[in-house]
């Protein structure tokens, strides 16, 4: 008995010390993909870099917590969050109804339109609506019309897209019968196949397309067709969290609001995307 008592006391004592340390500085583990430039990618030195890495560090500073950023493959990123491998996701993830069924999201911290990337000499470079954007939230009819306008040129073409994304869902829903959809693990892979000529176009967020264009091998890639926002493409990119983590959500929401207000998000998105990706409220 005495042994158990001592053991119990010892455990209690160590639990108290751990609890005490946690109260002083909470560590939030954030997962990112590390393969979705410029949102998040693995830089030349093997370190994670990108818009979301900078933003995560900024938000954690505001929340007065210590942040640890880890890389995690995209297709397992939500199950691993719910399995408590980490506490939050910042990986260019859009808020969608489907994801809201299993996880919670903060307020959006960025939003860019989505569209096609094609090679300059491709017939698809003349895709209808290039240079314009339309939002499903504001003009659902206009968005559907814009998709119809693409169809004659897209007919029978092969389009690459990252699997399990709002982009792949968008193509499956609106263009399944028009194009052949090829799903890739990462955007880097479909970029490679676009230059290799295995596919005719890629479909991705404009931020990612801009970053791809910056690379010398992709200088002949252009963004084509109407830029799409909202609807299936989600309500902006936000931090993903477990549903029961209300405290963390509050912290992130406040920090994001502050970062939007003082222009941090505008500054960081202009640095990484060359466009202002501040979400319109």
């Amino acid at each position, binding site marked *: 008995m005495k042994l158990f008592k001592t053991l119990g006391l010892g455990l209690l004592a160590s639990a108290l010390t751990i609890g005490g340390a946690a109260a002083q500085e909470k560590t939030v583990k954030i997962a990112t993909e590390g393969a979705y430039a410029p949102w998040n990618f693995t830089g030349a030195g093997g370190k994670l870099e990108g818009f979301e890495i900078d933003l995560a560090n900024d938000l954690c500073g505001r929340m007065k917590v210590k942040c640890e950023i880890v890389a995690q493959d995209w297709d397992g990123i939500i199950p691993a969050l719910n399995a408590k491998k980490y506490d939050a996701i910042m990986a260019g993830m859009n808020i969608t109804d*489907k994801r809201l069924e299993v996880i919670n999201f903060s307020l959006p911290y960025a939003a860019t339109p989505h569209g096609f990337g094609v090679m300059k000499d491709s017939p698809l470079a003349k895709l209808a609506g290039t240079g314009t954007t339309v939002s499903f939230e504001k003009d659902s009819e206009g968005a559907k019309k814009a998709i119809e306008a693409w169809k004659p040129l897209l007919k029978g073409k092969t389009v690459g897209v990252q699997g399990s994304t709002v982009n792949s869902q968008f193509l499956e829903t609106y263009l399944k019968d028009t194009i052949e959809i090829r*799903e890739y693990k990462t955007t880097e892979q479909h970029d490679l196949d676009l230059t290799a000529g295995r596919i005719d176009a890629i479909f991705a967020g404009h931020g990612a397309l801009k970053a791809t264009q910056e690379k010398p091998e992709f200088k002949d890639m252009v963004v084509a067709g109407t830029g799409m926002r909202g609807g299936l493409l989600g309500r902006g990119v936000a931090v993903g969290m477990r549903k029961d983590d209300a405290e963390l959500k509050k912290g992130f929401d406040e920090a994001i609001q502050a970062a939007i207000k003082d222009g941090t998000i505008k500054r960081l998105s202009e640095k990484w995307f060359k466009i202002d990706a501040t979400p319109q409220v």
Partner: protein
Amino acid sequence: MDFAFMRDAFLTLIGGVPLTLNLAFMAVGLGAILAMLLALMRMSGLKVLDWPAQAYVFVFRGTPLLVQIFLIYYGLGQFRPTLQEWGLWVFFREPYWCAVFALTLNTAAYASEIIRGGLQSVPYNQVEAARACGMSGILLFRRVIFPIAVRQALPAYGSEIILMVKATSLASIITMMEVTGLAAKLISQTFRAVEVFIVAGLIYLILNFIITRIIMAIEWWLSPHLRRPPAVEPRLEAAHV
């Protein structure tokens, strides 16, 4: 554990079985031919044939299949102009052929060693006995060496076939929607990794169960000398004659 969901997942993933088997059998079939060639090169006793075969086996056994698939698909994609000039691009443009090509090259390396082992295990006295009966060259190979070698190599070759069935799952990284590709897609739609992967694992288990039974049947068929001879009915009336 949601069994209704698992049944739906099973029905979805079953759709990938034809492609999984197609990839596995194409690779094993083509790989066997290449492996036979490599094994004969290794055993030819000629250095010009032996060394390239050794180098081939060293490279393809010593590097991960994942890396080989990546290099063949994305690596060769960088040399499109050259491949187009040679007329090979039609082949390498398709992810299916890249997957078959990578799997074939990989299995050929392993299988060539298995076949070589089988050929070398043929007892010399049996070869001598065959020679004494006047067999030589191709006849000797066809009637004696090859059947014995196949019998010896079959258990190891069976493992290699099973490994190939499982290796096809790597083709999902080059956009092939076989069982694992469909599983990954289903997980991303439902976020239920555990159930989907259990079902995917079950499908591979069923496939490989059937394959092991077939290999066992072939083994049984190839080793009549190990079986008990059929019991002879005593013929009673014969004793009176």
